[in-house]
C-alpha cells in the first residue's frame, strides 16, 4: 500500500509503536544510513501540519537505529532528547535525516540529526543514549 521513495528500502521495524506510525525507509550502508518517512494524513494535526509527536518519534527511531548500527545492536535506552521545530512539514512531504553520532563514551552515546524536507531543515533533535549494563 505504501510507495517506497526512489533509492530507499523499507526499514525493518520491531517496536509496535514504530510499526503503527510507519513505514520508515532507509538508504545507504550500515553505519551511514539515511532515513525517510512520507508524511500522510495519519501524521498531521487538524491544520494539516505534521504533528510534533510524529517528528519526535521519527527522531527517536532513526537516532536509535544509528546507535544500534554502531554498537552491533547493543541494548540501549534514550535518556534525553532535545528538539527544535523550525518549520512546518505537511502531508505529502518526504522528511529525511542522516543521523550523526557526535560522541561515544563507554556508557553513553550522543546522537543528533537535522531533519529536512527538500533539503530545507524543518526540525532538529539531539539525544543522549545509555548503553545498558555499561558503567
Amino acid at each position: 500500500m505504501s510507495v517506497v521513495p526512489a533509492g530507499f528500502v523499507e526499514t525493518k521495524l520491531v517496536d509496535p509503536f514504530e510499526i503503527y506510525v510507519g513505514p520508515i525507509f532507509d538508504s545507504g550502508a550500515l553505519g551511514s544510513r539515511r532515513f525517510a518517512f512520507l508524511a500522510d494524513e495519519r501524521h498531521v494535526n487538524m491544520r494539516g501540519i505534521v504533528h510534533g509527536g510524529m517528528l519526535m518519534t521519527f527522531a527517536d527511531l532513526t537516532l536509535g537505529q544509528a546507535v544500534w548500527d554502531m554498537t552491533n545492536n547493543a541494548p540501549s535506552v534514550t535518556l534525553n532528547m532535545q528538539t527544535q521545530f523550525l518549520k512546518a512539514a505537511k502531508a505529502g512531504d518526504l522528511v529525511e535525516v542522516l543521523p550523526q553520532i557526535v560522541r561515544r563514551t563507554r556508557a553513553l552515546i550522543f546522537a543528533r540529526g537535522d531533519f529536512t524536507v527538500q533539503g530545507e531543515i524543518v526540525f532538529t533533535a539531539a539525544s543522549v543514549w545509555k548503553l545498558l549494563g555499561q558503567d
Partner: protein
Amino acid sequence: MGDLPDGLPEGAELASIGGFNLFVGPLYRLPDSHEGAVKRFAFVAAEKHMNAAGSVHGGMLMTFMDVAMSRTSRLVSGAPTCSTVSLTCDFVGPGRLGELIEARVAVTRQTRTMVFMSGELVVAGRTLMVGTGLWKIAEPA
C-alpha cells in the same frame, strides 16, 4: 461521552478529536489541580504504544508531552493555534502496558507571544518523564 475506559479519574473527558492525536490516542483531559495552575491529561498505554522491550515507546511519551503542552498553551493564551518551538524531555523511567499515564503541565512564564512550560508524566506516583517546552502563540490577542 460514555466511552471512557475504566480507571480514568472522575471528570475525565476525551481530548483527541482528529489527526495524529486521535491516531495515537485516545488522549484525555483531566480536571486541573493546584487551583487551575496544573493542567492534567491522561492516556492508557495500549499494545500499539509499546516498544519491543515491553515499555511504552519514547516517541509516544514525547508525543503525549507535546499534546499536553500544546493544549495547555492554548488554554492559557486563549489562542486557537500555538506551535511547538522546542521541547526537551528526560526519560526517567519506563511506562508499562495497561498503565494510566498522567501528564501534569505548569506554565513557568507567559509573554504576549510565548509560553514557557514544564511538565511531568507520572504513573501512580512514579515519574516516567520530565520536560520543558517553549511554545509560540500563533495569533496573540
